[in-house]
């Protein structure tokens, strides 16, 4: 059902989405914690900037990224000069676009999960000798795990579907930057493309469903183990 080119698009999409989630996760986690737990000057500005990709036209976000990461852009120039890294029109650009577009969803989900964790539990951990990071990783993060996993899955799914910003900074190069949405778009542009794109449509749906199943399994797995432990000790 899938041609070699289709498989290429699927593999690339998975690679791009994975990279987008993995790279943005530490930053998203830190920022979500900061927004959930701290009050600081300029907090509203940070919140607004983080949420911006959600409301801006993706093409505009893509354009802004192009300006920043292009060969003459502030960051692009610096990356090329000091690290010899070229971003624009490579799969890395597609991952960057996906990460930026999915970032608000990830932060929002993790932030509300952290806000649900009673800060008094963290205080209790501190009085028991845990430093701030220790308390975060042993108390806050495990208790917020549902929202954290959900945030990552959401970001992953959003990345798989990313189109507008990607086409702006990564282009539509088969095998290099042509992800599933771009491949479908390209197929539909040519005669008989509707039939040829069916496989990719099914693949998108399958990936989305799989992502949800995996996240559900991750959550359930822990809970059922806990319940089983309680049952066995009750007996």
């Amino acid at each position: 059902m899938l041609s070699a080119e289709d498989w290429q698009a699927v593999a690339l999409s998975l690679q791009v989405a994975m990279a987008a989630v993995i790279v943005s996760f530490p930053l998203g986690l830190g920022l979500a914690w900061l927004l959930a737990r701290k009050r600081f000057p300029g907090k509203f500005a940070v919140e607004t900037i983080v949420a911006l990709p959600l409301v801006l036209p993706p093409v505009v976000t893509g354009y802004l990224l192009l300006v920043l990461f292009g060969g003459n852009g502030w960051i692009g120039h610096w990356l090329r000069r000091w690290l010899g890294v070229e971003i624009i029109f490579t799969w890395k650009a597609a991952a960057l676009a996906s990460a930026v577009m999915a970032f608000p969803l990830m932060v929002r989900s993790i932030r509300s999960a952290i806000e649900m964790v009673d800060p008094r539990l963290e205080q209790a951990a501190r009085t028991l000798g845990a430093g701030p990071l220790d308390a975060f990783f042993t108390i806050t993060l495990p208790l917020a795990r549902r929202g954290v996993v959900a945030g990552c899955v959401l970001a992953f799914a959003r990345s798989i579907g990313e189109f507008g910003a990607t086409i702006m900074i990564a282009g539509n190069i088969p095998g290099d930057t042509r992800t599933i949405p771009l491949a479908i778009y390209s197929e539909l542009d040519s005669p008989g493309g509707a039939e040829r794109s069916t496989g990719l449509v099914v693949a998108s749906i399958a990936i989305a469903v799989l992502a949800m199943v995996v996240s559900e399994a991750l959550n359930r797995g822990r809970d059922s183990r806990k319940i089983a432990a309680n049952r066995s000790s009750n007996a």
Partner: protein
Amino acid sequence: MTQPALRFNARHGFPSGFTLDIEFAADDGVTALFGPSGSGKTTTLNILAGVLAPQRAKIALGDRVLVDTTTHVALPAEQRRIGIVFQNQRLFPHLSVEQNLRYGARRRPARDVDFARVVEILELREFLARTPESLSGGQQQRIALGRAVLRGPELLLLDEPLTGLDSRLKHRISDYLDQLIFEFKIPTLLVSHDQADVRRLAQQIVILDAGRVVAAGPTRPTLDQAILGGQTPAPAPLNLVRIEHLSVVGRHIEGRIGDQCFYLPKSAIVSEQTAFARFSPSDVTLSRSPIAGISIRNQLRGSVAEIVSKNDSAFVRIELGGQSIWAEITPEAIATLELTVGAPAVCLIKATAAEIV
């Protein structure tokens, strides 16, 4: 150690206008921090726990300075070595009972406390694999207690540890507390608004009102004096007497205060040999000699140690067998009975008025 375990001196103003300004010391044994709500107990606890940074303070635990605002010292909570049992336990719901208990012990405890022994004292062995949510309030309270003790603290802070528990549980948790504090010799600060809890557990007391220390000293006399002097809102001193050699006899419970007999209604729960009976001074009638032909069964002989008048009442303290019982009577009755300090008197207490705690 010659210096007191805890020296606390702090001043902190809130935007609401409430200002805490207190100084006290707590030594080995149990010291109560007693006062009505709004007196500054919680603020003191938060300052000690490191949750609230006071505007001006000097706090030392043994020879370690925890907070000194003049030299900008403020140890983070995890370095203070204060074990806290919070009012609503704050157990970690995602960890098993054993993981909860070991949480502090795993993180460089101030000193080693034997895990097996704490589990034994608190009778927690059968629950170790469970999660805290699946346990009752009293069991959760025991875990919180064990967790704080296993941290190996230099000071144990108990925030209303018996509030919200029924009398049977209060009695048991008090016993657990006694055992732990006795066995591991941890200086303890008990935050409470409950006279019975304070009288039952604390040897020393610091009485707070409106953010100030109004009195401090040995629990019984200090608390009695503060209440009768109107320095704290409690209307009357509560009687809490230790009853020993309890046994069920027929339809009632019999015990002893010194060499005298004390009867309690059978509804009271007796699981131990020793318990405390609480009753109000208004439930105590005085006479000069034992009375025959009366339904009141408890007739305890003692001698008048103190007479204090408050409002329109007179409070008479009778000493017997090393313990004290307050009776609230009218000033006229004092004249009629010719009660003076040192005079013999008999306390008449209805068995049903006493409650075991």
